[in-house]
């Protein structure tokens, strides 16, 4: 490039030098490369789940309970019926506990507690709950419901542990949605003479519903995959059981039990169970995303 006029000669000094351009390309390449690396584990996990898990799926896999003595009987080690039903039962009860309480606390935080010291404290404690390791929730419930009552493991105790785990997720997601509701909506309802409770039940909650459903579904998806809080609250058993005050099997716990087995067939059962679990959780995630798209807020 030849200098044709004084001004372009000056500008030339500011052009991107080859060294800077090289650095830019290098950095952008590294960032893109790292992004690809981040997605490799996901692809590998899903690929191995499908390739190993699908082969153990069959009708009897879903319709029989796992059997105990697996060392010699490689042909009839059973399936995951009790685990799937157990997971559904435990998570259903956990949801029945955590969702009303969680939504209640979120409504209180937004509608009544706004800006108060006590609300700050509650929010801080909810954040604390978010960070508590899931196994510590198991310990909490063990202390209160097993040491405290002197009884043994039971499905509903697992539900309580999972409910503790779901609470902060439900509260924080609902709170975010509730704060998005325009204040004018509340004020117009109040100005028309509606009492506070009616505003909450007839105006606020219906408006926030789709958004809150998303948060709730994500909380359920998270709880369904947890192993640690169930290990010494619901324990595990092999039989299908519809009584939540008994020992109860669950998918994550059965996978965890099967991982350590030296028998290939049992490990394959773990892959099949893992595929079933991941399918359930991904379905919940997909539904959650579809619902959130219907929300008029955000």
């Amino acid at each position, binding site marked *: 490039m030849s200098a044709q006029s004084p001004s372009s000669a000056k500008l030339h000094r500011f052009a991107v030098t080859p060294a800077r*351009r090289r650095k830019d390309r290098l950095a952008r390449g590294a960032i893109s490369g790292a992004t690809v690396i*981040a997605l490799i584990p996901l692809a590998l996990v899903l690929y191995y789940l499908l390739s190993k898990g699908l082969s153990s799926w069959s009708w009897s896999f879903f319709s029989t309970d796992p059997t105990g003595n697996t060392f010699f009987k490689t042909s009839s080690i059973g399936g995951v019926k009790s685990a799937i039903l157990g997971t559904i039962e435990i998570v259903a009860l956990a949801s029945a506990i955590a969702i009303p309480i969680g939504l209640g*606390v979120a409504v209180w935080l937004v509608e009544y507690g706004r800006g108060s010291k006590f609300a700050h404290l*509650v929010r801080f404690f909810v954040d604390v709950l978010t960070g508590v*390791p899931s196994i510590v929730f198991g310990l909490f419930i063990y202390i209160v419901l097993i040491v405290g009552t002197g009884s043994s493991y039971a499905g509903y105790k697992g539900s309580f542990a999972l409910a503790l785990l779901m609470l902060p997720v439900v509260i924080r997601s609902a709170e975010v949605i509730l704060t998005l509701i325009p204040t004018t909506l509340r004020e117009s309802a109040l100005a028309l003479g509606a009492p506070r409770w009616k505003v909450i039940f007839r105006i606020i909650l219906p408006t926030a519903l789709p958004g809150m459903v998303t948060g709730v579904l994500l909380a359920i998806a998270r709880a369904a995959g947890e192993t640690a809080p169930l*290990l010494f609250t619901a324990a595990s058993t092999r039989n299908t059981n519809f009584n939540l005050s008994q020992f109860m099997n669950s998918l994550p716990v059965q996978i965890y039990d099967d991982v350590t087995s030296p028998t290939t067939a049992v490990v394959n059962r773990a892959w099949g169970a893992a595929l079933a679990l991941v399918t359930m959780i991904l379905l919940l995630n997909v539904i959650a995303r579809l619902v959130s798209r219907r929300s008029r807020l955000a």
Partner: protein
Amino acid sequence: MPGGDRSTLARSPLARLPDRALKYGLTALAALILALIVFFFVRLVGEARPAFAHTGVFGFTFDNDWDVSGEKFGALPLVLGTLITSGLALVIGVPIAVATAIYANELCPLRLRSALTVLVELLAAVPSVVYGLWGIFFLAPKLQPIEQWFADRLSFIPFIGGGAVTIPNYFIAGLILAIMILPIVSAISREVMATVPADHKEAALGLGATRWEMIRTAVLPYCRAGIVGGAMLGLGRAIGETIAVTIVIGDAPQLGSHLFGQGYSLAAVIANEFGEAQGVHRSALFAAGLVLFVLTLLVNGIARVLVNRASHPTERSATPPVPVGPQPIAGAVAGA
């Protein structure tokens, strides 16, 4: 209507009742959360006390001897195992997570952005036990020869090399944890990067910065606190992660001799031994849970402060933002 009786408009005490009930009911619910956490904490300390009485608080945390049959409960190998694996997770996971956030926010074609975020979030949807299963049956055996190569080449560095690589080991646990904390660190970083004012970025580009120079000078300094906060939240996750680590760390009750050897962590010891534990042993596991609880509390507390400060940038700068809009640029027309 001067002097009209407005009291006819007021609600009767009976009609006010549901309002009061709802308000106090919900307040009680909020208070319940507080009471529960405090209650749990007190009970946990109570259950852990026999173990602390057995070895002393200092001895429990810093004695390098976890021997159940000998009733020796020094949790140092567990504490160090937790720190080694979660430290590794940060070293591997955070740069990659921040890179995905930069890519999604600054480099990615707009059409791909939401697909990319969904994919990264899917990593968080895979349950811990499934990562453990995959880690022990796929990742660990596949990586063993590579790990052995590194262990042989780097044997001059203490703790890194010099021994036989076992299939479950600290490194694999750290790697699995890195994958597991990636979504949260990435999500927080993305959130914080979205708060960088477009003015700053445009100013950098306008001064002739390349894309990377813009990222380095305008984006990264602006969200440093938020990224550090996100990394700390990831650290909190990594410290408390239980099942995946239990499966891939090897569950050896002594401090591993090197990075590619078997070890143990606080969470793993609880998951693994609690079922059969009695007496002082069980109390020691409660104590391990208490240490874990306090550790995650500290890490998460610091993280929250950093993240909250970073995602509300208005509180940082007192100067109001300059209004953005079509403004006449002096000399632009004259120069044309």
